[in-house]
């Protein structure tokens, strides 16, 4: 180790900045994947440079409702076990309220899905495991015996040493990064990283990885990039000694207790108890406010304890464990950790700077696994261990990267760390960041907005409340199932199926690929063949390993122009993917046209007749065939006169009824809305229709797949049922893997739709699945895994108003994918009988509504 050397090498293939748990494990994983010529830097000393790793509470609860966090938590825990720096002490989440007991039923469901051993305990059973707990104030507990305590500093050292030993990696502690140099990458409009400047010299580098924890954004800013995270305080106090703990003669002898309703935990640390809190007010810091190692009284990320913030938690802690009251508070800190605007990590290549990678906003509990994700991403072009789309740093739009947004969202979700968060829960802060040109009309129509990243989209319209009565729709019995939901959605659905509905799709993200190489490049991105001018191609984009990166349409709008249309949740990721792969010779340009056009979806049996009110163009299946784009002029006058606007009619459907996506200039969208309402409201039963139909009930009744839900990189087009009879001759990303999968024969699993045969729970209440990874089981109650370890779980769920049943989507082993197969699905820790419909949805299986 060249720790004390005064100068750094003049060049390296990879420079990793940050020697905490993430940087160290990343170095180790890169070494295992064959990388060499690496340098690891840290501003602080080793083995504890003073970042968040050094004061981490170091325990891992392997259950989370989020798939990425859960599976990478398990993966990380196993990596700590592999190097023998882990003890399985077990852990219990205790409930003080009935609402929390219900949440623990959900935890059981998630534990079952992820294959984590767990069980619910009575208060007396909790006390058997934790004799010093006050069992009179708890209603029960969720016990997970594989909760572990790890040594993150030592594990980091082992990974780092592995990289030193196997690759000769050079390590420089006490070395400060002063700048990250970049150069223009003209073709993409990005920068490209060239060198890292330190106080011990300049290192030219091809890859620079920022694993700087709470300092990451400051370091990224040096390269003109952002890593949207903020240092935030997590208070903890070490109290002791206590005889009952000392007598264990062990670092950890009792299970960790999470006192979920007070947002606190009690974790034994030798003879003392560490009490940690996520209950205090959000306390955020700018990275510049963090003292240096020399300036800090303890370490830079162990900031002075603000006692007043912790006092309420002490009372609650004493209430739970009486003995804590008379133990001494020996050490207490405002420990810093990283929070992001959406509570997910920041992994992957920074979208603005080629070669600059982020491995940040990662906590000790998922450190080794997340490091593996980044190492694989750098090696294979996309992670293999899991689809990390939720952690992909490219997911953020500009509005999400500024301090105002980061601080507001971090403040909002900090107290939800142990919160009970509904899958559809909406943010309160930072709303209306981006609205459609139809926003004021939607507000007038009583739209209830859901925010999709930065975009406000109507989920339903209160002005359609009359449909609830018309179709006789009931509220749901259990408040949880009713939360963030309205029976109006069902009314809008049935109205669309009977008449027609209008869906604002302005949040579509549109990217024009233009230039002499545009069509060839477009074909390189996607599996299916780019068609002639006027045709659109619905197609997957694959990872190099042949799994889904994206699922979208590509419209050939001109000889040298292809327009990419993708969803709002993936616009950032897809644009970054384009820039990563596009030719650097200038033969292709990419332009974000999202705010140039607005899209209105018009669907339903009466949609063609209504649209015909606005145009004389041939709207038959001959004149406007499925998958085709027709350019027309629409008369949007509402006074009987003539006012023409240009429009492109794209005949396609994501709801299973005939109709079009209508693309118009952004500013023309209100005129189109008004004209359609003018002609359609009374004569054709037109209603503005929300995302509850478009993205959920309409889609799922047809079994249409959604990127990020059914479509993830762990699955290929054959498994998703989106393969075509032939493969185009042109090369494309993932082609080799795709061909191999085709040659391998029938896929092991198939994406299927299932219906819930009886949705009554043990108390006789009707329950409604939320599509939150609920496990599918065989009739004996066994969770279903395939040979790759992929679990069969609910990827989407809805009540299907037109079929009168709940519909679930899940990957099933091929032998179970047969229509009529009887299985079970778990919801809130109860099992419900379900039946396989097949690989398509139960509504209109022959697509009669889409045919001429």
């Amino acid at each position, binding site marked *: 180790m060249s720790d004390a050397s005064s100068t750094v090498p003049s060049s390296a293939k990879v420079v990793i900045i940050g020697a905490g748990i993430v940087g160290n494990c990343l170095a180790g994983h890169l070494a295992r994947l064959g990388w060499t010529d690496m340098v690891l830097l840290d501003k602080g000393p080793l083995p504890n440079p003073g970042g968040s790793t050094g004061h981490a509470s170091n325990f891992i609860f392997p259950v989370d409702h989020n798939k990425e966090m859960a599976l990478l938590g398990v993966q990380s825990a196993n990596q700590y076990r592999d190097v023998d720096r882990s003890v399985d002490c077990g852990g219990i989440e205790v409930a003080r309220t009935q609402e929390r007991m219900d949440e623990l039923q959900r935890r059981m469901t998630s534990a079952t899905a992820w294959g984590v051993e767990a069980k619910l305990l009575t208060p007396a059973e909790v006390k058997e495991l934790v004799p010093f707990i006050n069992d009179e104030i708890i209603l029960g507990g969720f016990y997970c015996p594989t909760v572990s305590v790890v040594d993150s500093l030592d594990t980091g050292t082992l990974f780092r040493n592995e990289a030193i030993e196997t690759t000769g990696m050079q390590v420089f502690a006490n070395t400060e990064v002063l700048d990250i140099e970049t150069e223009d990458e003209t073709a993409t409009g990005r920068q490209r990283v060239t060198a890292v400047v330190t106080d011990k010299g300049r290192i030219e580098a091809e890859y620079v990885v920022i694993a700087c924890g709470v300092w990451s954004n400051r370091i990224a800013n040096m390269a003109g990039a952002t890593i949207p995270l903020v240092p935030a305080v997590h208070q903890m106090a070490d109290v002791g000694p206590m005889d009952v703990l000392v007598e264990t003669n062990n670092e950890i002898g009792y299970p960790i207790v999470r006192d979920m309703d007070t947002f606190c935990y009690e974790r034994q640390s030798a003879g003392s108890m560490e009490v940690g809190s996520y209950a205090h007010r959000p306390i955020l810091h700018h990275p510049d406010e963090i003292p240096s190692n020399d300036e800090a009284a303890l370490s830079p990320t162990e900031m002075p304890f603000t006692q007043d913030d912790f006092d309420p938690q002490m009372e609650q802690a004493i209430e739970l464990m009486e003995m804590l*009251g008379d133990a001494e*508070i020996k050490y207490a800190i405002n420990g810093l950790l990283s929070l992001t605007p959406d509570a997910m990590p920041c992994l992957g290549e920074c979208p603005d700077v080629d070669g600059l990678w982020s491995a940040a906003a990662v906590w000790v509990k998922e450190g080794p696994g997340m490091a593996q994700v980044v190492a694989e991403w750098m090696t294979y072009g996309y992670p293999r261990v899991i689809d990390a789309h939720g952690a992909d740093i490219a997911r953020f739009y500009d509005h999400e990267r500024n301090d105002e947004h980061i601080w507001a969202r971090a403040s909002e979700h900090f107290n939800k760390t142990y919160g009970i968060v509904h899958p559809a829960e909406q943010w309160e802060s930072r709303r209306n960041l981006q609205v459609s040109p139809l926003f004021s009309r939607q507000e007038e129509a009583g739209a209830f907005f859901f925010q999709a990243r930065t975009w406000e989209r109507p989920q339903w319209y209160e002005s359609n409340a009359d449909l609830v009565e018309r179709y006789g729709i009931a509220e749901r019995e259990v408040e949880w199932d009713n939360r963030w939901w309205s029976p109006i959605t069902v009314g809008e659905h049935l109205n669309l199926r009977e008449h027609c509905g209008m869906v604002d799709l302005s949040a579509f993200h549109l990217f024009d690929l233009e230039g002499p190489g545009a069509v060839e490049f477009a074909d390189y991105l996607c599996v299916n063949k780019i068609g002639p001018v006027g045709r659109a191609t619905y197609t997957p984009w694959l990872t190099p390993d042949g799994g889904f990166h994206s699922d979208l349409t590509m419209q050939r709008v001109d000889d040298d122009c292809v327009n990419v249309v993708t969803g709002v949740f993936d616009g950032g990721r897809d644009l970054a993917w384009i820039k990563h792969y596009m030719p650097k010779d200038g033969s292709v340009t990419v332009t974000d046209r999202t705010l140039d056009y607005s899209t209105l979806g018009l669907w339903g049996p009466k949609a063609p007749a209504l649209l015909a009110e606005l145009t004389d163009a041939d709207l038959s299946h001959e004149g406007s065939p499925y998958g085709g784009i027709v350019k027309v002029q629409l008369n949007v006058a509402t006074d009987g006169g003539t006012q023409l606007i240009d429009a492109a009619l794209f005949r396609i459907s994501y709801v299973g009824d005939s109709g079009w996506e209508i693309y118009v200039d952004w500013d023309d969208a209100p005129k189109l809305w008004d004209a359609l309402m003018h002609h359609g409201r009374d004569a054709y039963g037109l209603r503005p229709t929300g995302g509850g139909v478009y993205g959920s009930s309409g889609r799922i009744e047809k079994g249409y797949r959604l990127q990020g839900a059914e479509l993830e990189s762990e699955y290929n087009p054959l498994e998703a049922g989106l393969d075509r009879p032939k493969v185009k001759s042109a090369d494309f990303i993932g082609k080799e893997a795709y061909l191999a999968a085709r040659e391998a024969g029938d896929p092991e699993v198939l994406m299927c739709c299932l219906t819930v045969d009886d949705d009554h729970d043990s108390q006789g209440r009707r329950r409604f699945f939320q599509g939150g990874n609920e496990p599918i089981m065989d009739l004996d109650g066994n969770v279903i895994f395939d040979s790759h370890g992929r679990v069969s779980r609910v990827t989407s769920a809805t009540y299907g108003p037109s079929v009168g049943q709940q519909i679930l989507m899940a990957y099933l082993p091929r032998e179970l994918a047969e229509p009529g197969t009887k299985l079970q699905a778990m919801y809130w820790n109860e099992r419900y009988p379900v039946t396989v419909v097949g690989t398509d949805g139960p509504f209109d299986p022959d697509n009669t509504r889409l045919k001429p």
Partner: protein
Amino acid sequence: MRICVCVKRVPAPGSKINITADGQQVDTTNLGFTTSPHEECAVEAAAQLVEEHGGEATVLTLGPAEAEEQLRYAISVGMHRGVLLATADGEWDPQRTARALTTAITELEAVDGPFDLILFGNESADAGGFQVGIRVAHALGRPMVNGAKGLSVADGAASVEREADAGRETYSLPLPAVVGVKEGVNLPRYPTMRGRLASKKAEVASNQPSADAGGLAEQVLKSPPERTSQTIVLGTGPDAAPAVVDVLEELGVLS
């Protein structure tokens, strides 16, 4: 017995201490605050004496309103009540501080009776003037010993030990007396959670300090030149052994 402990709120810095741009204060932007270490020992001494002899201990400070935090901390480790002499104009010089404390102590004694013992720290952790305790003792006309490394009370007298070059000095002071305590006299306890919670409810009086001028004026604070230590790498692995031997011989630790 009745004891009064005088403490000072001071910054809790790391190894590098920054000074504000105007050179007037320690830059405390990112620092927490604590009680001077000698005074933490004075508080502990008072707590132990009261535990042994019964009675009541009052903690007194002169400083900004935020110094209430240090008073409540002292209460959480055994003091009974706190008195804050709130200042609004930064650091007071030792003479002025001593006059204000003397006045305050006199007023407290007028109401509740005399203190048997008034404890100070040997010196404050930030200014290090070594004066306030002596000035207060002098003004009150009471005997005072500074630098106490041992303290006990029996038969109306305080027995105080100090470290001297050749051994230990022992003093006997008739009560009421004043003692300046030095770190090491005891090991201060940490607060318990219950102690902390109780301290939040304890009485802390905020009194106006008397405002007699002092004689010492601060001009400017400067950081001393940084001590640089050059690290020389002698080599790595077994090859480094001869160089290490050379150094050890040079230091005279090898025979």
